[in-house]
């Protein structure tokens, strides 16, 4: 895990006439890390297999950005550990009852029962999709 920070080095020689008027407008280069990572020490990537979240736009082969530091809110898409397996589902709260809900009519929602081994592993914040 490395944070990358980019800084501009100003090299316009002042003595050789006017400095470039563009120097004043130079800003940081856009860095995708800044956009998708809020907590670098808690951010992990996972690769998707399976199609249970298809209607949420998450397909096999996509890479998900997962932030472990965030608490799962109602309707968040989460990575969870459920009875010895990892799963990606929508986290739904109805009163006290918790559900893991797929986004594909071919799969049924899972009601979290007391005897199940269940733990939210992290909250999915972005989906990286290959389009070409």
């Amino acid at each position, binding site marked *: 895990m490395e944070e990358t920070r980019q800084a501009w080095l100003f090299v316009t020689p002042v003595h050789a006439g006017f400095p470039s008027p563009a120097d004043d407008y130079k800003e940081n280069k856009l860095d995708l890390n800044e956009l998708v990572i809020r907590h670098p020490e808690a951010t*992990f990537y996972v690769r998707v297999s399976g199609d249970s979240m298809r209607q949420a736009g998450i397909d096999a082969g996509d890479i998900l950005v997962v932030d472990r530091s965030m608490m799962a809110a109602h309707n968040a898409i989460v990575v969870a550990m459920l009875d010895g*397996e990892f799963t990606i589902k929508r986290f739904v709260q109805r009163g006290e009852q918790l559900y893991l809900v797929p986004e594909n009519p071919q799969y049924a929602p899972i009601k979290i029962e007391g005897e199940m081994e269940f733990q939210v592993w992290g909250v999915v914040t972005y989906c990286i999709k290959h389009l070409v």
Partner: protein
Amino acid sequence: MRRKLFALVDCNNFYASCERAFNAGIQNKPVVVLSNNDGCIVARSAESKKLGLKMGQPLFTCEKIIREHHVQVFSSNYSLYADISARIMKVLGQFTPTLEVYSIDEAWLDVIGYEGENLTELGKTIKERVFQYTGIPVTVAIAPTKCLTKIAAERAKKDPSYHGVLDITHYDQEALNSLLSQVAIEDVWGIGSKYALFLRNYGIRNAKALKEADQRWIRRFLTVVGERIVLELRGTSCIPLETNRVPKKMIIRAKSFGREVTELAEVAEALSTYIARAAEALREQESVAGTVSVFLHTNVFNPNIPRYTNAFTIFLPFPTAFTPTLITYGLQALNAIYRTGYRYKKVGVQLGKITPNVAQPDLFGDNTLDERVREDRLMFLVDALNHIYGRDTLFFAVQGVQRTWGMRRLHLSQRFTTSWDELLTI
């Protein structure tokens, strides 16, 4: 003297916990992690400890237990552990700017800024945040000296009623003595087995007895190091946080081969790689080395093959951190000790006479200032590229491409956090 306040954060079964964080199927199962070459156990989950598996136990002596209890076995995945460790240290940095990274899975935090607050709550917050961010369970111990945090951490690990957090800053003498009397003298941080034996001969069997020992007597026989430990047990902090690591005076890189190796070319490849790694560490601490020592030996645990052990030291004409120079002399040393007909198990290098890298050009010799600057630049580039693009992006041809001598790691998990090709797939 100003009061001090330390929090020791110690990861529970760190390597095993790292494996567990990325494997939903082993949450309540016994887990062990093996040393280099899958030789022996170096980390155990709580379930494995209950099965009687021991730290350092050779794998072949516990295969039956492993099979019968479905113990989950992993090779050491250092890329994963190092990344998770770095994340944990960053999380700890959110609580204080002053922390000492003591090892891959332990750190001390200066928490004097929290004095007067509920320190048990602070400990809980640290513990919960590290777990939330990284999935690694930790123990947090808070005390006025580093030595006492070590003792409190051991106590908190043994007694589940503490839930992994123990603050002993409010203990009175009686409570402290009762805690210290349960700590055997050899378990006191900083007391080696030799001194422990010596102290036992004088009836000093536990930490409480050491705390009450005569300070001058201790100083006479255990030097100032022992005296500091006594003072620390009494609550006076004398061992400060080492936030800036002192540069190492000696750098050793050595590993056992995954299989026994006979050919000089293979030994030379391995040695060159270790020299390159040692040189990288040398440059990282901005130092140069004055000697290169090479050692080589056959499998000391196998009585049935001819044994051979040797070492050779070369004094360099001028101190350097330039990898090609170090490899050149290292290979000369190897040539001096390599004998055909043996099956070698281990080769290594030790860089000695380490000094800060300040230019001492030899005006009339090979080592001109120009040459030094050129070498430094080249090495800077090699290190930078290897840092950015991954180890061994740039390497010296003598290190070999095949690396058939590499470590045996049959149970290696994926590099979940450091390789795009090995992400957790769900």
